[in-house]
């Protein structure tokens, strides 16, 4: 038998390439269309607008090149907002990110009534986020709030909470410590449960204690989900708006004004959409860079 005809081979490959499976395309089309319309189009339009002194009545206005970028980059107010944003990021990272991981590790060792505990962890997530924040805001009231009332029983306080410039950021992050990790916990729990029990049992037989099993077996095996969660967490925190707006509107004295808030205020209170778009672009680049960096570090460890 001789070699196959090379020309005929090329024809077969071409036909195969054209053999499109329409069903997946059909299913993917709505989501791709939504992404293009509601994610990529606004993103490209934002970049476009950021180069104009935008006129809302007669868009897009006057082309100003990079002057919107230079204007906000030379603004102390902007850098204060950037600083606040990263302080929030550090606080959320230090106080909340690890909690569902620990909860999932503990939950995975609970045999009795495990489903009940999983349900209980999910329960707070059904409270609308804004409603939860409003309850906390009421609890923080220095005159009539519950928190100071409870704390005085253990000899603490009274604290001014949202009235104390040194405490406001912490007061905003604190509610997230106690609630809101339900879905993350389930993801981590599922990942832990997917680790083969034989490996863990073998490690136990070989004398590995609980801490060692966690550090050397469980955490490395669920690292993929931690990385995914971290990327979502990072963009979520760096673009946080609702909870801070409801709690403090960016105050007092600008101590909780974050970049996303500055973007909204610049656009809708000052009608300066060009600079607002430029600031959004800045945050897009920062988050993109941090995500790439995170992926790179993670890949190197692998």
């Amino acid at each position, binding site marked *: 038998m001789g070699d196959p005809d090379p020309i005929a081979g090329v024809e077969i490959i071409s036909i195969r390439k054209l053999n499109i499976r329409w069903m997946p395309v059909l299913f993917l089309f709505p989501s791709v269309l939504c992404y293009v319309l509601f994610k990529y189009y606004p993103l490209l339009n934002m970049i476009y607008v950021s180069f104009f002194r935008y006129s*809302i009545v*007669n868009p897009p206005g006057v082309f100003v090149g990079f002057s919107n970028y230079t204007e906000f980059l030379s603004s102390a107010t902007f850098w204060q907002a950037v600083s606040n944003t990263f302080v929030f990021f550090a606080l959320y990272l230090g106080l909340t990110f690890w909690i569902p991981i620990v909860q999932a590790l503990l939950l995975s060792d609970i045999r009795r009534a495990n489903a009940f505990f999983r349900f209980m962890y999910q329960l707070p997530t059904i409270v609308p986020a804004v409603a939860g924040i409003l309850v906390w805001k009421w609890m923080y009231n220095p005159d009539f709030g519950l928190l100071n009332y409870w704390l005085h029983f253990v000899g603490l306080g009274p604290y001014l909470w949202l009235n104390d410039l040194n405490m406001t950021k912490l007061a905003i992050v604190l509610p997230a410590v106690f609630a809101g990790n339900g879905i993350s916990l389930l993801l981590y729990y599922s990942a832990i449960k997917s680790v083969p029990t034989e490996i863990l049992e073998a490690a136990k037989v070989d004398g590995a204690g609980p801490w060692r099993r966690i550090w050397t077996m469980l955490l490395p095996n669920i690292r993929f989900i931690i990385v995914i969660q971290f990327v979502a967490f990072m963009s979520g925190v760096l673009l946080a708006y609702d909870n801070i707006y409801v709690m403090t509107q960016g*105050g007092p004295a600008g101590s909780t004004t974050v970049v996303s808030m500055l973007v909204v205020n610049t656009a809708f*209170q000052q009608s300066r959409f060009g600079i607002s778009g430029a600031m959004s672009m800045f945050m897009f680049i920062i988050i993109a860079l941090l995500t790439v960096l995170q992926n790179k570090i993670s890949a190197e460890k692998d």
Partner: protein
Amino acid sequence: MNRTTKLSATFALIMAAAVTVSACGSSNNAENAASTTNANEPVATNATEPAATNDTTQTEPAQTAPEVDVEITVWDKPHADDLDKAFKESQFAVFEAKYPHIKVKHVEQTKEKEREQFMTAVAGGEQPDAYLNPYPDMESYIAQGIPADITDLWNSFEDKASYLPSSLNAATVDGKIYGVPNSMYVTGLMYNKQMFADAGIDPAAALKDWDSFGAAAQKLTNPGKGTYGYAILGMDWADWFFEYYVWQAGGDLTEKAADGTAKPAFTSDAVVKALQYYKDLKFKYQATQKNVVQSLDDNQKDFYTGHAASMIAGSDWFGGLVSKGMDLNNIGFSALPAGPSGISPSQVGGNYWILNPKASPEKQKAAFTYATYFTSKEYLEATLQFAKENGIFPNLLYVRSDLDLSKYIEGMPADLVANVQAAANNTHLEYFLKARLSPYIVKPIQQVLLDEKTDPLTVLKAAQDLAQKEVFDKYNAELKK
């Protein structure tokens, strides 16, 4: 290709796409820019050239109904829980019967983020033909060309003489008119008569000047009972009421020159004195709530629940407070205590009907007819009658001068009526460039209210330096372009 190169290529692609899109649109942009003088330069237009886009000509009297059917969109549909929903809908029907050629599409606006909704509609080319816009946004919106120039419509409007001349102030730039006055209010000091009586305080003497008010507010404060003298506004709208104290001290927060340029006056004697008084109310007299950054709603709640003895309020707030359970006879209203300058100006506010500059002349005329009908004597008397029949305390300040309020306020406390009208004797519009300057002024106010060690002049100086660099320098530069 390594990761760094891939990353660079990705960003290069994004930026190239952006520049391409930008370049594609540039010819169109140039056309737009040329056809709309300074429409994208809010500052310049405001000071020197009223929005040149609003050049639609109207010459016929507004009262003349169009001969062909015209449909207009108005964002004034009442909310389901509004007390006057049925009344408003009946008035819509009256208008439709009177002007059968004007078909009105009433759109309901949600109660939150109204400004964002409106700006989004403008940006999307969906600006309503008539929209009720509050005073503070008029300056900025006129500069951007958002409201139509209705000077010709107004000048040919037969009933224009019945409107208070002062009601047009916030809608007039360089002699051109951009809004039909719809409502007005005046601010003053609202107090709880019973709490004053219980403390043995004579309101007339207590509300005379800053010192007497501070001492009275201190006396009205009783932490054991959870009551305090004065609900101070320290949240992110803090500059709203703070500016009154600056006026009382004889100054203003900004100065506008004849050539349109502006400069800050944050470190002027009047502003420093006003901020020092705020500090005294909190720390010297200890007469405010502990949570000085609580919302305006919370301040009102403290007042109608009997926790706060006084607060600054608008003359149109009575109805809301009574609906929350307050006894009207227990509410006192006075001009604000006089400051070091010996005067006590109040702020006048309200809203205007603004029209869509891009609407056809027919639609603009129909929208103008609509706006003037809903500020007509006929309509306002109907609202007063409705308020009287339903026990609602009416706003005592109207945009018209031909309303006889006496028959609608029978049984209302006479001193209240007289004091609201007295507060309107000396009124003031809000400070210039408020939309851009607000955060720069709120910051030192909050710093002083939250930290006893803060020196008012120091924080005002820092705020002024920052505002000069980030707002005034840019504003004045844009003006010269």
